[in-house]
């Protein structure tokens, strides 16, 4: 029970530690645990230690639901972090609403995670409040529409692109969401998408698709997906002699992208992200240094978002009057100007972070430019 130890605050961790997307879950949890360690080392929350209750949902939404039930009813956690993917997170939300325990994710990007949408649009009640808001669900990452539209705008305005090819990851909601939003904004801006190709996560050979689009006319390639495949697509595209700009989203943000694609291939590559390492923000610099010291490798977007996620929740906890789920929810909803390594933000009425977005340009694998854009 929750009252078992007055000096502890239990936080549930419901992540994909095995199964198809274990890599996202594991990366997030690495970041989360590092943040919790830091907070506990610094005296915890009002003298109470944070105790993470870790569990593995096997990348299955039903398991995520079951575990959420377990964490809330049996372990009596004050809040749950995760899951990483929108599907599993959505599956968890009804449990959160029923038990009135907040659930917060660092990487579920689908537009309709925290609110119900009608035809992709948020609806409002007569009193101006958001209709269909998931009261107990929060996130600290971009939504797909935000990132997709931002990149479309960047392509049309900064790169003067008229024709684009989309190569999307059809197996993830992330890829699907980004692709759709990029497409609609790009067309609004007068552009044209000449081809929409698809792959599934785990694929390694994209030569067939690339040879096909090589014969087409286009200005940019948009790859809504994760670095695992994007790295290989970029590498194979460059090897085939496709030199056009390649665009992506925060799924590109990983040191492994450079290793997979090779520094030579990473020219004219742009992606939307939360922060840029060019920022030289001391917090970011320190995070990267600490993370590298702790885990022996540089952090990627999932690590950073996991780190911020734990910090964000602890920030909420420190502002709670009484340490219970209800006041935590209220504290989180009223977050203003939280500063994390993935940017500073406030929580809006839809329980999304209001964050600025940067477009990072790569040259020989190094971050070379960063442009702030708004969607």
């Amino acid at each position, binding site marked *: 029970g929750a009252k078992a130890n007055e000096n502890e605050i239990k936080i549930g961790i419901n992540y994909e*530690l*095995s199964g*198809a997307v274990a890599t996202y879950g594991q990366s997030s949890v690495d970041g989360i645990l590092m943040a919790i360690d830091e907070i506990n080392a610094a005296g915890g929350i009002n003298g109470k230690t944070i105790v993470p209750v*870790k*569990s*593995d949902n*096997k990348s*299955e*939404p*039903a398991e995520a*639901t*079951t*575990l959420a*039930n*377990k964490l*809330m*009813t*049996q372990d009596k956690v004050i809040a749950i972090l995760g899951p990483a993917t*929108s*599907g599993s997170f*959505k*599956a968890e939300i*009804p*449990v959160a609403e*029923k*038990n009135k325990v907040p659930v917060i994710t660092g990487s579920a990007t*689908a537009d*309709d995670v925290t609110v*119900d949408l009608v035809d992709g649009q948020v609806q409002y009640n007569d009193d101006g409040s958001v209709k269909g808001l998931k009261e107990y669900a929060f996130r600290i990452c971009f939504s797909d529409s935000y990132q997709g539209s931002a990149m479309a705008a960047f392509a049309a305005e900064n790169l003067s692109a008229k024709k684009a090819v989309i190569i999307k990851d*059809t*197996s*993830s*909601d992330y*890829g*699907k*969401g980004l692709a759709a939003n990029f497409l609609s904004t790009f067309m609004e801006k007068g552009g044209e998408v000449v081809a929409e190709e698809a792959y599934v996560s785990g694929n390694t050979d994209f030569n067939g698709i690339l040879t096909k689009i090589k014969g087409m006319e286009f200005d940019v390639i948009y790859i809504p997906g994760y670095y695992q495949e994007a790295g290989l697509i970029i590498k194979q595209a460059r090897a085939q002699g496709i030199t056009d700009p390649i665009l992506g989203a925060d799924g590109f943000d990983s040191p492994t992208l450079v290793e997979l694609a090779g520094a030579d291939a990473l020219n004219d590559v742009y992606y939307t992200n939360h922060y840029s390492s060019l920022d030289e923000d001391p917090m970011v610099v320190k995070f990267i240094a600490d993370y590298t010291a702790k885990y022996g490798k540089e952090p990627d977007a999932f690590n950073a978002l996991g780190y911020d996620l734990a910090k964000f929740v602890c920030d909420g906890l420190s502002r709670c009057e009484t340490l219970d789920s209800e006041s935590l929810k209220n504290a989180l909803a009223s977050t203003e100007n939280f500063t994390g390594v993935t940017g500073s933000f406030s929580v809006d009425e839809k329980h999304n972070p209001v964050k600025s977005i940067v477009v990072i340009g790569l040259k020989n694998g190094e971050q070379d430019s960063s442009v702030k854009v708004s969607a």
Partner: protein
Amino acid sequence: MKNMLQKRWLKTLLSLVAAYGVVQLLIAVGVINDYIQATIATICINMVLAVSLNLITGFTGQFSLGHAGFMSIGAYVCGIITVANPTLPGFLLGTLAGAVTAAVVGFLVGLPTLRLRGDYLAIATLGMSEIIRIVFLNMQITNGAAGLNGIPQFVNWTWMFLFTAGTILLIVNFLHSSHGRACISIREDEIAAEAMGINTTKYKVMSFTIGAFFAGVAGAMYASYFYFLKPDLFNFQKSVDILVIVVLGGMGSISGSIIAAVLLAVISTVLQSFPELRMVIYSLVLVIIMIFRPQGLMGSREISAALFRKWGEGLKRVFGKEKERV
């Protein structure tokens, strides 16, 4: 004969009602919380899946690796219908429609592919379920990879119980009929079965269709209880998970499937305390069980009164000795 049958019916009915009542009571007094209920739901769904696959693979001898495909049809059809018509009749209609659609697909797929033998059939059924999954992945109405969200939850313990007990009863009845025996004879010796006047194609397709129907029911139960569907829930791994239950319990043993579904859920629950090693331990347990009981927990036997008596005697012997020593 008739008398015996009636007695068996009565006994079954009584024990079922008792099982239902006990759980219902525990839920009412709060001993069974949401978490345990969710676990029970998983067990029920797995039972329906395993028993229906056992009909195809364990009893008719047709090696299928595509059961998740049929489950997904039931789940999506039911999910979509219930979203459009979020009432109890809507849900029941959805379940029926889902199961029937799964059965129809099973029939259409089974007709040409059941000529294949052994591993070739396994591959064809695997391919079929992958095709179904990819179609769901690319359809508008299913919302593709983003998943179908917000399916109203109508399935509670009562419905879970009705569907599960119903499926098991119907399939057991079928197996104890001449039609069921015809299916079993195919597993035993297809050539001899044909020579004895069994239309093997017809019965293979029949068993496949019935199996698909109940897999569809399981899908509907899943959709309604876990209210969120996405295509990669129903991938190859899912089919394999169902097969594992069947083989672990014993091919050709309904009680085996039931026991294995419970056992695996228990193992899985215990392993939740070891998130990092969960799958490693699970796989080890699986290998060890198979090495020590290759025929599965029950072999092809069923739990019956006689077996209980045998166990009872065994226990008595063990405990008897214990007493002597004291």
